[in-house]
């Protein structure tokens, strides 16, 4: 009888081991499915750029089974509110925070606080000036600036007065980089005179006003370079209003239906189009990967395209300029 009991116990032990194995395998599958919680803090909820970025993030979140919470300041590009949002997120302890910075200096303290509490922080669109963040996912803005210069020379030659419209109130890293790239390229072409907008602005109206004033003071300006979306639209509106459509060409950044309209009408000659969808997608993807222990590079380039009004309806450019709204 004792022998039998022993044998049965042995049998049960074997069975338990088998069960354990099965369970372990199932757990292995389950581990991949554990949801990462990721917070995406935009600087602005309404612009096409950020809507696209958000879509990319959502697609990636779905694909990688991450839980994505999206926040944005009520007031567009409000740095203080963004800082508040970051601080609030720190208390919720998500696995990662993705920030589209409204200002790359003033949010640094909050970002460092977040990384110190063990949250991975990712910057999209514009880099944040701290080494504590995991990665910056965005375009190579220095190169974009240089490309603008290249196009300038290509289209308009080397003997122009050029207005550079750039908001200066906030420290947005990518705009500074673009400016730097442009100036670096222009150094080789001394005959081209660059005029920087001196006054700062945050809105399209502000940009329009600044453009207006620079155009009225400098009558020989033939090209306007607008280093961000707001400047691009402001400059275009100013040029249209002043009736200088045939005299002045604009090179701008980022696209939406307004920009397309100005491109259709020829006011905007060229836009540098980034890929906000890619930024959002890659930010979430890499946040998930990082949380799973994959090493992530400090800088992930998402690239940009240069689209002219003449080739904006080519098959490739259509896809870049007019995102599907599915």
């Amino acid at each position, binding site marked *: *009888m004792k*022998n*039998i009991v*022993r*044998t*049965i116990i*042995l*049998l*049960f032990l074997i*069975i338990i081991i*088998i*069960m354990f194995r*099965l369970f372990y395998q*199932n757990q292995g599958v389950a581990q991949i499915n554990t949801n990462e919680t990721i917070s995406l803090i935009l600087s602005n909820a309404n612009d096409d750029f950020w809507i696209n970025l958000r*879509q*990319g993030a959502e*697609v990636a979140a779905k694909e990688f089974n991450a839980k994505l919470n999206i926040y944005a300041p009520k007031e567009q590009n409000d740095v203080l509110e963004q800082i508040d949002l970051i601080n609030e997120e720190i208390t919720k302890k998500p696995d990662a925070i993705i920030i589209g910075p409204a200002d790359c200096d003033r949010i640094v303290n909050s970002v460092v606080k977040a990384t110190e509490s063990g949250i991975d922080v990712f910057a999209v669109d514009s880099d944040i000036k701290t080494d504590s963040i995991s990665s910056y996912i965005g375009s190579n803005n220095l190169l974009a600036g240089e490309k603008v210069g290249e196009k300038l020379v290509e289209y308009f030659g080397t003997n122009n007065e050029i207005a550079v419209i750039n908001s200066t109130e906030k420290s947005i890293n990518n705009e500074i980089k673009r400016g730097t790239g442009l100036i670096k390229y222009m150094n080789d072409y001394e005959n081209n005179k660059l005029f920087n907008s001196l006054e700062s602005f945050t809105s399209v109206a502000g940009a329009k006003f600044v453009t207006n004033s620079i155009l009225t003071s400098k009558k020989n300006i033939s090209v306007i370079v607008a280093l961000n979306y707001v400047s691009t639209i402001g400059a275009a509106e100013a040029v249209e209003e002043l009736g200088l459509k045939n005299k002045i060409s604009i090179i701008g950044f980022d696209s939406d*239906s307004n920009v*397309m*309209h100005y491109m*259709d*009408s*020829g006011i905007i000659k060229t836009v540098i189009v980034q*890929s906000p*969808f*890619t930024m959002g*997608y*890659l930010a979430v993807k890499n946040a998930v990967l990082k949380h799973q222990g994959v090493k992530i590079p400090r800088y992930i380039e998402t690239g940009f395209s240069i689209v002219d009004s003449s080739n904006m*309806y080519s*098959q490739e450019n*259509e*896809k*870049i*300029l*007019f*995102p*599907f*709204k*599915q």
Partner: protein
Amino acid sequence: MRHFFKRNIKKYIDDLVKTLKLRSIQFIITISFTGITIIAMSFVGIVSYSKFTVTSEKNASLNAEQLLNQINSNIEYYLQSMIDVSGLLSDNIYLNPNIMNSNIKDQMSVISNTRSDIASLAIFSAEGKLIYATNTEPLKTNSQVTDQSWFQNALNKTDNLLFSLPHVQNLFEKKHDWVVSLSKVINYTVDGKKLKGVLLVDMNYSIISQLCQNISIGEKGYIYIVDSDNNIIYHPKQQLINTGLKQEIPENYLGSYQESSNDGEKIVTIKTVNLTNWKVIAVAYTADLVASKKDITNFVIWVIILSIMLISLIFAVMSAKISEPIKNLEKYMKKVEEGDFNIYIDAKGEDEVVRLSHAFNIMIYKVRYLMKQIVNEQEATRKSELDALQAQINPHFLYNTLDSIVWMAENGKSEDVITMVTALARLFRISISRGAKFITVEQEIEHAKNYLIIQKIRYKNKFNYSIDIEPDVRKLNTLKLILQPLIENAIYHGIEYMQDEGKIEISASIHENKILFIIRDNGLGIDPEKMPGLLRYDGKSKGGSGVGVKNVHERIQLTYGKEFGLEIESELEEGTTIKIWIPIDTNKEE
């Protein structure tokens, strides 16, 4: 720690091996039945598993194909409706005497307004001039209609009907909608002149997304549409593809094929859409199927494990039940082994076991009976030995002998006195022989000889005797005091009353592998009527010398068994021959 563990395991394995070697009935039943169960269940499991997976795989691919067909027909149906619309319009335009007739404009407006999936309807002249459009927005001043691919294709292609790739419609101010354009050459009349033109039907791209959305094949599978040049028309992850984050290049192949990519094995099914050169492609991930495969595997394994556990438990209990009465029996047998014969098994349970127990009870009863018998026989042996001894030290014999010695001494027959006393001393020495039950044949013969010497002197040479021993027999063992009582009988009953000289012959030899003593006298013989009762033992000794024959016979049989003993042949007035058979047994202890 590890060492300890190791040793324990070794011990355990040794025990297990021992267990396997011991193999109780219960163990054998349990193990063999469990083994059979495992084999049977595994067989059933494997068969049902393979059947199951094949069916589920079939179902999955069938499902994908059905979905594909459904979408295909949805798209076809939709495109057909667009073709119908364009056909209706082109017919009307053709038949209408004047294109500028409000009739056509109204019809176009109605179609455009009632169908939200139509972004715009427009008619262009062959030169690219807009004749009429349902859009409220004006045509862009710088739009080049003749450069548009749909326009060129409509005019150049012979099949007269064309669906474009999804593209951004850029004809109208501030409009940048994604559309699929259906363009068709039309013939229209204006101011009495027949002219060629192009009818444009722009379908909202979103309608195609809607047709294909919410379709899922497994967890990850999906459906997408390409044109003949593999340009993507619809893809659920179109943005990822547009931004270059994903790539999708289908094979130029219709039907179904398997493909492995870095996100796993997948089954791709391709079908063409009639009316266009589009292809609808379904991608099903085998991982999804494998997931269900895994579920099935797990399920089957669990079922097998559980049933094996259950069945082995049942078998363990059952075999315990079967072997329990046998074990009970074993327990009783152990008791018997230890010497307890006062046992009666009151068996319950299966018939076989009851019968076995019954047989056991009978056996025990018989053993008990035999033991009693043995005890009785032992007692009888002791008693008959004692009788023999008593007979030996018969006071009459001693008295008579001593009387004879005295008489001889008085007559100065000192020679005879010496002979007689010596013989008497030898006789008693051998008969006592330190209490041993067995002596050598030589000694037994010596004993008989001494007795004969004494009797011969006492009977004044009334008889003669001869002794003949084969040399081989001398050293063999025999029960002692078997010859003397018979000789005594021969003298007292055969020779004493004879007129002639008596003669007693004694021989010992080996015959038929037995020792054979023969005592032959030429005396009066035995009355045949007395013969039958001579060797029958009746348990009572009446004393006297007549007892001698019975006593010897009895002792031999009790010691050596029934096949040995005495044989008596006798004839009146002729003599008596008694044969004594005993086994050759050198091993009897002294």
